[in-house]
């Protein structure tokens, strides 16, 4: 009985009203996906640890160096031990997490904004606009990504200092709090600007699907502007794939940042990210494997959780789910 109601609801498609029960459906399905739920909990825990815990004083200063006890094992005052300069590893991991997560979120947001805009316009307009936009996407898709980012980073490095100085002079923010982020701007731009491509394709497919529906015809005949239709009716209904995709993009961005850190063009010292901690740890694997293991754990947990969550969301939102 309940099954049939769901199917019916899905087939007589959404105005925002029927969409309501679509979401309820999805939520119920998601809730029953244990992996996804556990992932949610883990993610919340990690985000809390990285963003909230360091405010408290029992977390040491991540930049404080203590050469005589470098590379030491975990102790009561240093739960993860100390790194190659005697800095508290736990603190470095937490602060590093802030940056890695923010890189993931901000870059994905940049990506999403551009991708949704392009995909929606392409899917809605059809015809020449669509063809042009999609050709552009195809062209950009074929570019060797890492190569361009490497070249771009080499050029942009150091150009952000002017911006930092301007910000420090004109706002109340301290140098230390801004600098890691302005330094990352080339990174956000480079990664974000090249990773919106997939999203645009997905959004376009979704939008095309929805645009074909009758209620959109109805809305147009009512005289609603294109922009209004897009924003109020179409995109909200395409949210499903967008959310799924976003959840799955964040981990790949974080992984990419880690690779760039390994190559030396990601985050700069003394700030750290999980990427830097892991690549430093990989180098020192022989002499102090804890330096690799401790940062890897939250990194891998975050990535895996995001993947489980993304998969779960996809299963939950897609009626033709692969789970019976």
């Amino acid at each position, binding site marked *: 009985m309940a099954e049939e109601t769901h199917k019916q609801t899905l087939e007589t498609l959404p105005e925002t009203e029927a969409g309501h029960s679509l979401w309820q459906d999805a939520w119920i399905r998601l809730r029953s996906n244990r992996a996804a739920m556990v992932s949610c909990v883990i993610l919340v825990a990690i985000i809390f640890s990285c963003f909230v815990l360091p405010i408290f004083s029992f977390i040491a200063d991540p930049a404080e160096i203590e*050469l005589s006890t*470098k590379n030491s094992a975990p102790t009561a005052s240093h739960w993860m031990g100390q790194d190659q300069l005697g800095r508290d590893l736990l603190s470095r991991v937490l602060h590093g997490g802030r940056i890695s997560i923010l890189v993931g979120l901000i870059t994905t947001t940049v990506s999403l904004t551009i991708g949704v805009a392009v995909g929606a316009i392409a899917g809605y307009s059809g015809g020449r606009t669509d063809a042009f936009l999609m050709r552009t996407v195809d062209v950009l898709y074929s570019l060797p990504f890492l190569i361009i980012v490497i070249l771009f980073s080499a050029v942009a490095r*150091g150009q952000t200092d002017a911006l930092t100085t301007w910000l420090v002079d004109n706002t109340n923010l301290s*140098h230390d709090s801004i600098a890691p982020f302005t330094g990352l701007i080339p990174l956000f731009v480079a990664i974000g600007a090249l990773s919106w491509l997939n999203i645009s394709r997905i959004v376009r497919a979704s939008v095309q699907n929805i645009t074909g529906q009758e209620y959109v015809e109805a809305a147009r005949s009512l005289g609603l502007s294109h922009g209004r239709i897009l924003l109020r009716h179409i995109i909200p209904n395409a949210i499903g794939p967008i959310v799924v995709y976003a959840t799955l993009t964040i981990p790949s961005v974080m992984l990419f940042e880690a690779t760039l850190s390994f190559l030396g063009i990601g985050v700069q*010292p003394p700030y750290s990210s999980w990427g830097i901690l892991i690549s430093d740890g990989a*180098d*020192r694997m022989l*002499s102090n494997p804890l330096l690799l293991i401790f940062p890897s754990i939250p990194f891998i947990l975050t990535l895996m959780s995001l993947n489980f969550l993304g998969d779960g969301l996809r299963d939950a939102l897609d009626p033709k789910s692969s789970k019976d």
Partner: protein
Amino acid sequence: MVSVTVLKSSSAIILIGSILLLASCKQKSMVERANEDKIMLVGNSAEPKGLDSQLISGVPESKVLTSLFEGLCGDHPSEDNTMVEGAAKSWEHNESLTEWTFHLQPDAKWSDGKPVTTEDFIFSYHRILNPQLAAAYAPMLHAIKNAKAYNEDQRGFILCGLDENFPVEWDKLSEINFQGDPKVDIDDLKNRDFEKLNLEEKRKLIAGRGLDRLDKTPLEAIAADESLFAWPDKISTDIRNLVLERLISHIDQGEPDLYDKAQVGIVAPDPHTLHISLREPVPYLPAMTRHTSWFPVPKHVVLKHGKMTDRFTEWSELGNIVGNGPFKLKAWRFNHYIEVERNPHYWDAENVELNGIRFFPILNFYTESRAFLAGQLHTAYSLPPELLEWAKENHPEYLRVEPYVGTRYIRFNTRRPGLDNLKVRKALSLALDREELCKYIFEGYKPATALTPKVGNYTPPDILEYDLDKAKALLVEAGYPNGEGLPRYKILTTKINPSVEAVQAAFKELGIGMDVELKTFGPYVSAQQAGDYDISMAGWIGDYPDPTTFLDMWTRGNGNNNTGWSSTEYEALLREAAQQSDPDKRVALLAKAEKILLDDAPIAPIAWYTRLYLHRPEVKGWHPLLLDNHPWKHITLEVEK
């Protein structure tokens, strides 16, 4: 159903089978095989940019070049300061160390069988000094009389000053601005048409370039209008015109090579005697001839593939290259390996033990360590310092820790506000606990007490110290108590490693917070040369075992100085030392000069280099050397039973 099981089990079988096969295939390691073949496997960090010793410089390149070529003097396998025979069998000098005579090996041959004679040496030194070649390391030969003038194309000096028949002595002529005034900025005038410039601009361009570097048009313009150039009063109009005439006619003739007119101090009375005249006493000349820039190149081969001044022709490529050293080139796969094999024509071939050497350009030192431990290399180029403790514990039999002729130091841009204050610089230097830094960061390095490490008979002054309180007091005196008022400096460096972070932390303790500015090597060098930095992490490796290789660069305008500091007293002492032929007196003068350098603190030396590397015990004939130039001909591979 069935086929899936079959699929699963067959892939399992294949997997297990291959693993067993691989495991059983445990052949001899690469090193073991190489020992039998008497071939040495060497980790060489980077792919050589080329093998033309006159155009290329760099440590990885020199490792390969010293197997293929040989200089006048050879390297001693265990003593830094003892000279041995090389391409020259013997040599002598006059009392004032300005005239040297080298007697070449009578039977030396190139690897194609042709004899090595002074003709090759004269050609080689002519080539590297030829301004058209634009050899970056030509200054290594400037000690030779008139070599600098020829290499820098000092036409006024060569065409007028060296001409005995010129009516006026060079002393008077030297007041003329031949070489240009570096303070005049002519960047935007350089590429513009001379005719189209206004009077002021023309004067500026001429003053900036100097008579030697002008084209015909500006020279003729000066001939027509004297006021375009700032002639010294003592020079009469006739002389002015004569100078211009010579310069113009040189251009008219197509700017012929001025080598002969320059009378560069190299003469060969016979095919095996080379006579070198120097501009000042150089007691360490034999040591200098061991540097790759002094190596001979085969005249007949170079000229076969191009003119003397053609850069990077094919003469030095596989199949063409010919050398006078113990080995010859066998294979060259880019970024993969370079292999050399025994050269039967080498004059001392019967004393060469190795049959060949293979150089692997492994850039990533962690990869290199892994390769060494997996038995793929006899010697590694460098051990990452993080692995020192681990290596001490687990592989002490392989570990080598040897002093090296180089210094790590910090460079201050004395033109920047705050850093222009001597007290600030001294405070920063005093804030560095060199003992601690060497213990924990620059592991294996020795704390520096001066810039120059102990080389030859030179003992460095013992000046640098660590005193945080004194440093803080100095800051107060300078007007920046606790660092307040100082701008936020950036430390320029090329790599993110503990050393920068430790230095950053040390300065923070003084109250001066700094940021790190990371640039890749190219921009790092450019920025310093342009004065576009505050503080930089730097290192300098000496080219030869004499303190001047560390001290000469801190003179005004020297391209490796870049601090904005100079001192007439310092330069006077260096010049005096250059004229001094008594070795002890000379060394004392140099120490005095270094003291001035350290007291004025445009730089803050941190530590003297130590080389850390992994090395297999069967390599014999390899001894710790300050210059790390182990002569390949003396190396053998002996496996202990």
